């Protein structure tokens, strides 16, 4: 099997995987990075949302070969993109804590990564911008997600 080398949460990693293996499984099953979750495998539920070179991707449909030489950030590495202090969280994570968004929590890594990507595109998102986030929350925490995104935008 070929090797692919890329930046993962600030560190260089090499993974031995078939070219078409979805990145989600390279992360979870070969690299032990389990923050990105499986929810559908076909880019519908967005539970695995992570960043490739700072923009949102869904690792469940991203071939591992496509990330070679690039920078992958999962929920585990998000805080490190904001601060070098290992105790400090990203402002979006802080907003999630303040609003007590999570219920079961399973979709929340993906929700947070989608929100961060949105805030990188637009610093002051409208309700329509937030409505465009398609990540499913089966617990129905959407109203607090909306509040948390607005709170994080105000802080950032």
């Amino acid at each position, binding site marked *: 099997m070929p090797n692919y080398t890329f930046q993962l949460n600030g560190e260089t990693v090499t993974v031995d995987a078939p070219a078409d293996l979805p990145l989600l499984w390279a992360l979870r099953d070969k690299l032990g990075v389990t923050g990105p979750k499986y929810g*559908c495998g076909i880019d519908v539920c967005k539970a695995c949302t992570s960043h490739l070179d700072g923009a949102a991707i869904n690792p469940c449909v991203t071939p591992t070969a496509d990330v070679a030489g690039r920078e992958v950030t999962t929920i585990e590495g998000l805080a490190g993109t904001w601060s070098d202090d290992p105790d400090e969280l990203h402002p979006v994570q802080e907003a999630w804590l303040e609003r007590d968004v999570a219920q079961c929590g399973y979709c929340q890594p993906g929700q947070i990564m989608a929100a961060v990507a949105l805030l990188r595109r637009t610093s002051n998102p409208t309700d329509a911008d937030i409505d465009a986030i398609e990540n499913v929350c089966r617990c129905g925490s959407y109203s607090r997600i909306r509040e948390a995104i607005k709170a994080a935008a105000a802080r950032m």
Partner: protein
Amino acid sequence: MSLGTPEHDIAEPAREHSRRRFLTFLVAAPTLAVAARIGADGLAPASAQAAVPSLPAPAEILDLGDALILAAAPTANLIVVTVDETGRVGLALPRAEVGQGITTAVGMLIADELDVGLDQVDVTLADARPELVFNQLTGGSNTIRSVYGPVRAAAAQARARLLAAAAARWGTAPSVLSVSAGVVTGPGGRSATYGELSAAAADPGLSVVLATPKPPSAATLVGTPTNRVDARRMVTGQMEYTLDLDVVPGALPTMVRRPPTINGTVRSVQNEAAVRAMPGVVDVVTVATGVAVLAETFGQALAGKEALEVTWGPGTVDGESNATIQQKLRAATLPFVVPPLLTTTVDAEFDFAMVSHAPMETNSAIADVRRDRAEIWSGLKSPIVAQQTIAAELGLPQSAVTVHVTQGGGSFGRRLFFDAALEAARISKAAGKPVKLMWSRIDDMRHGRARAASFHRIRATVAAGQVLTFEHRVASGETDTKHGLGEILTAVAASLPVGGNLSFAQTIFLTTVHSPYQLGATTHLLNEVPLQMHTGSWRSVYSANTRGAEEVLIDEIAAKLGKDPVTFRREFLKSDRFRAVLEKVVTEGQWGRSMPRGTAQGIAFHAEYKSCTACLVEVDATDPRAPRVTRATIAADVGRVINPRGLESQLIGGLTDAIGTTFRAGLHIDAGLPLEGSYSQFHYTRQAESPLRTSVFVVPSDGEPGGAGELGVPAAVGAVANAYARATGTKPRSFPINFPVDFDPFPR
């Protein structure tokens, strides 16, 4: 401590553990608590209203939650609070955490009772403990109701032991001591931490009187909005769900190829050798439910199972579709019992489609089955029954099967069933290897559990501004309760307020569903049609459909009587407690405000679990095929509230469920299989369909806590449907309201 008499307690030495702990067990309080609550709500004095009174329904005398509490009472004293030498307080909760925030709420109860900070308390999920018998089932919105007494009693006794130990050390009386943040302070400024006192407190020779939990007035944390104790792990990706665990070295990612119809069987596998030769594939084994592929990664297991060519035997419902199921339900509907009266009737029939539980974390389990033992990890709400069943399946003694309960990624009733754990055990045994089993989303929706379809026929007779009779007949696909609930009901049968030869389902129905209104002679009857499908209780069980439909009809009865929906409810609700909740949303939600064309308000009410709630929504149905709830106002009275912030989460979740299932989310059964296979097809609510404004109000109340986890759904179903009806001028009768097959189904 096993309390022989109320004057003595006995600390038990900790089992083998890295740190010394002392343990305290308590007491048969919950039975008394139940007795004190019986009839408290429905039999409250009716205020001076003109409505024709109804006799109390069975659920108003003793509800399903009371039955669960009664069944748990004999083992309530096996709930154990520990304090170790570092001063950390622990409790292994015999319930599941699936997002309802129960570990936070229970931690708050313990922290208040012991005078420690919430951050000093560790609430974990207990392994299957067969000695708990009926006291390890998570359902019926019953966790707080059932552990409120025992947990507080155990924590109070732990505090008493620690104070007794300090008093003995200092030669003083416990009554002169005080505690703050886990530090005991005595005369002369002497102090000792709980950690320092824990060993002495564990001395069985210590003389300790029976402690009683603090009164609500002494609470510092309970009743205060509190954030989840596990939230930081969730937002940093550190929370470990079943398949995130690295607990069995070499456990192989495993997925199962399933039949083209529900309960189909494997006849033969044509290309096993070819699939075994695929990259990463390690093993292929056939089990009762399909053909399992074990691989190095889930991606490879998925590719392998999709490549399998299998000849299948028929399933159990191959001839069924939504239309045939609806016909069967209509045919099975029991007749009304009130003879025809020479009065006006308001009649309606309602259909509700099947609904997937669809938790974000699909069905999953880790199983390590050896010759003489087995170990299982899964998100389980009935772990004892899981342990019993898996042991029988594997031919092992129950004591040789260890079942660990992991935190679940949602449930909504789904994880009452342990089918993933059982299947993983079968695969591990067949392959002779430990496995990590994951169901695909498609399989989770098509072969997983779902709320059964139901049909409702309701008739009210009205005369002279009154409702004289109200009858509701429900026909439902059989709801599977073979996860221990049936045994619980059998065990407490003598206490149940229902007689005759009722089925488990009818018993559950009658101990959960009741009308909160004075509607004269009121009857509810359920009949279930046995369809061999994978069903299960879905958040609020029968009430979402049954009470949701009734709330729609209440608006139509009100219209028949020429009354505003709020005016009618105000007049006909059974108690002032109910009216207070209704008035809260009327005021806060600005009932009756002017709304543009194509938009409208809707309101509904529901009482269950010793709690009650009202919901007022505004719907924009300018495009009736794409309606949106734009604003929601919810009020609830759940008795004593442990964590108002968690309660708000539960009510918002119930609202979101109601929006989805009322407008768009359901399953189309077609030739024995749901067509839906993902969230692009099963249209659960997304952000763009959720309200822009949601407000939740907790109406102050006292007394024992009621249930809250499922409370929010039925009222919200009624409110959303009523708002849609008023906005569009239609009478909703079939749910979901907008339910086309608007997708290309995945291959079978």
